[in-house]
């Protein structure tokens, strides 16, 4: 029982971190162009001269 008292808040905190990260990614516009983000991985960077 005593262990639960600190384990549950830790679990919730970690979950909360995940939720916060999701909210941040939403606000920074990462969901605006899902198809583009998927294909940009395949683009080779041109050599910068």
């Amino acid at each position: 029982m005593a262990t639960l008292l600190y384990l549950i808040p830790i679990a919730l905190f970690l979950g909360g971190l995940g939720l916060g990260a999701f909210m941040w990614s939403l606000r920074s516009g990462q969901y605006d162009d899902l198809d583009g983000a998927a294909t940009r991985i395949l683009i080779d960077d041109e050599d910068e001269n």
Partner: protein
Amino acid sequence: MSCCAPTEIVSDIERVEHSTPSPEEMLLVSRTLGDGIRQSDLSVPGVHCGACIQKIESALSKLEGVAGARVNLSTKRVSVRWREGKVPPLFETLERLGYEAHLFDPAADKKDEALAELIRALGISGFAAANIMLLSVSVWSGAEGATRDLFHWVSALIAIPALAVAGRIFFRSAWSGLKHGRANMDLPISIGVLLAYGMSLYETVHHGEHAYFDASVTLLFFLLIGRTLDHVMRERAREAVKGLARLAARGAMVLRPDGSRDYMPTEEIEPGMRLLLAAGERVPVDAEVEVGTSDLDCSLVSGESAPQNVAPGATLRAGTLNLTGPLTIRALAAAKDSFLAEMVRMMEAAEGGRTVYRRIADRASALYAPLVHLTAFLTFLGWMAVSGDLHRSVTIAIAVLIITCPCALGLAVPIVQVVAARRLFESGIMVKDGSAMERLAEIDTVVFDKTGTLTVGAPRLVNADAIQPQTLALAAAMAAHSRHPLSKAIAKGGAAAPHQALADTRELPGYGVEARVGENLYRLGRADWAVSGGSAETGTVLSKNGELLAGFEFEDRLRDGAAETVRQLANGGVQMEVLSGDRPAAVEKLSAALGIQAFRAGVLPGEKADRVAKLTADGRKVLMVGDGLNDAPALVAAHVSIAPATAADVGRNAADFVFLRESLSAVPLAMRISKDSGRLIRQNLTLAVGYNAIAVPIAILGHVTPLVAALAMSLSSILVVANALRLKGAARPTIAQAAGNAKIGGATLGSMEPV
């Protein structure tokens, strides 16, 4: 485009005449970002892969004056940031790369608040549902006493933000429904969720055994998935349609009395102003020609397939396209009094007269909500009568509410429509909202417009075989110098023959093309101009030194798949009619060729809408297929409407479906998918009702526990979604078919152009 096989062909560049926006127009539409940087948004419907992104971004970034360019593949747009000063040649660069581009109005594009709210709610309810489920599983596995109470309290706390954020969407909708005296689907959801939470809280305080926190939050999560998917699909379709070419000019070059020129937005043009109209531009307001002769393309405005000659004194309607020569015109009316604005008014009138269609989901929920509430109430009364135990009766009544909670029902309809919209999207058909598919499944009459809908709106040379090859080659060489549709048809018809390069040619807008070879003067154009001394010939001819050499005959090219579509619809028992603003001879010929008996020619826009209204009054459900400005009121008046992507933007926005590919077979395909999705919706509703029929007796008898509720909810939702995924899209075309339909880099793959 040469980066990869084209999967969506938006429009044939040569078919849709649109001019490259002038630098003044681009400046007008751009936004200032501050620091001397402006942003222009362009819609590029042809973008579809990573190589396209790279090509466009690197080409545009290299331009002088451009600070950066970013492609958004999902919305098919490019945002270009450029330094103030000279407007960079964005459109020319893009067209050189092979991408058709249109200027996009940022003012018309507000940030999608609803989607952001939905995704936020989805995230929070997902987080809450997962964590509460974790704790609930521990309870079901045998947590007892103080541990169980602790878990229940933590669940209660986690559920609060979920209800506040996610539940608010449903509470708001249910409340607004109640205020108008209607019970929609959100009412039983809201009542169920709130009561479940309230009861669970009560149980927790009193150290009870069962708490339904996980049921209420998981319910919200599942329903939000359905809503978000539905919203995303609809937004995607709307965005795709918004990104297509705009009909009305944003502004015009005004010639001031002191001789200076000024580029002004269309709204600010007043009657009496003199405007300069270049070849390739659309007429911004109703006007009269003062100086110049030219040919005008009226097909999008009135449906006439043949271009009209204009000379000083002629009246021009707003929206017609100036083809060949520059004109100086005097505005006759302001933009809001022009033909375009009149069409919009007719459309609004037609919309007011249409009866509101009640969606299947709303009809189901109108029955469902009172039934469920009644059952729960009766259960409560029954248990009170039998056992007299208030606590137990309330618990069981709420359990009944929870178990009947429309997780499956709330997903049954949206998920099928989302899958159907996706299948249609893959075939290049955009659907504006789910009710459009429901309406399309009901129709029994189809009304077609002619020019631009059944036909492509581009003339084709038909008597090429009757003309001598050298004559044809000469005509083709001359015709290459003109943008007139008939010239382009001749150039294409004579393209096979090798032609000589002509040094001395000039185009006389409104008349034709003149060329000098040696001492001979050749004229290709109007018979009364080319042949000296008058002639019985009408139409387009080629003459040498005033003597007739050859006459040309043209026919408007039938759209791909038109005959096949008519046949399929006739087999399906659908009645068809052609309503066109074109000349009777042309309409009769086309109807006979396709096998449609009923047709009317010379129809004015108001008359089209009236005809549709009359058919509706006769009890028929009408599908209107049209592309022009003159079809817009009829598109709105019909039960459901479809427009091609090449349609006038007013018509595109009015239509329920927009098809991007050339083939008219989009119409029977959309009908088939709508009927199939209607069938699957009925199956899903049956499944949902069947699930309820099993679950409700179990709940009434008092055997429902949170574990049972969670299992039932999840299983029914999965079943409904899996059933929806069974919807079949269009059969994938074979490689030969795809090659026949595709054009890569402007040249046609395969040997023959589709006729």
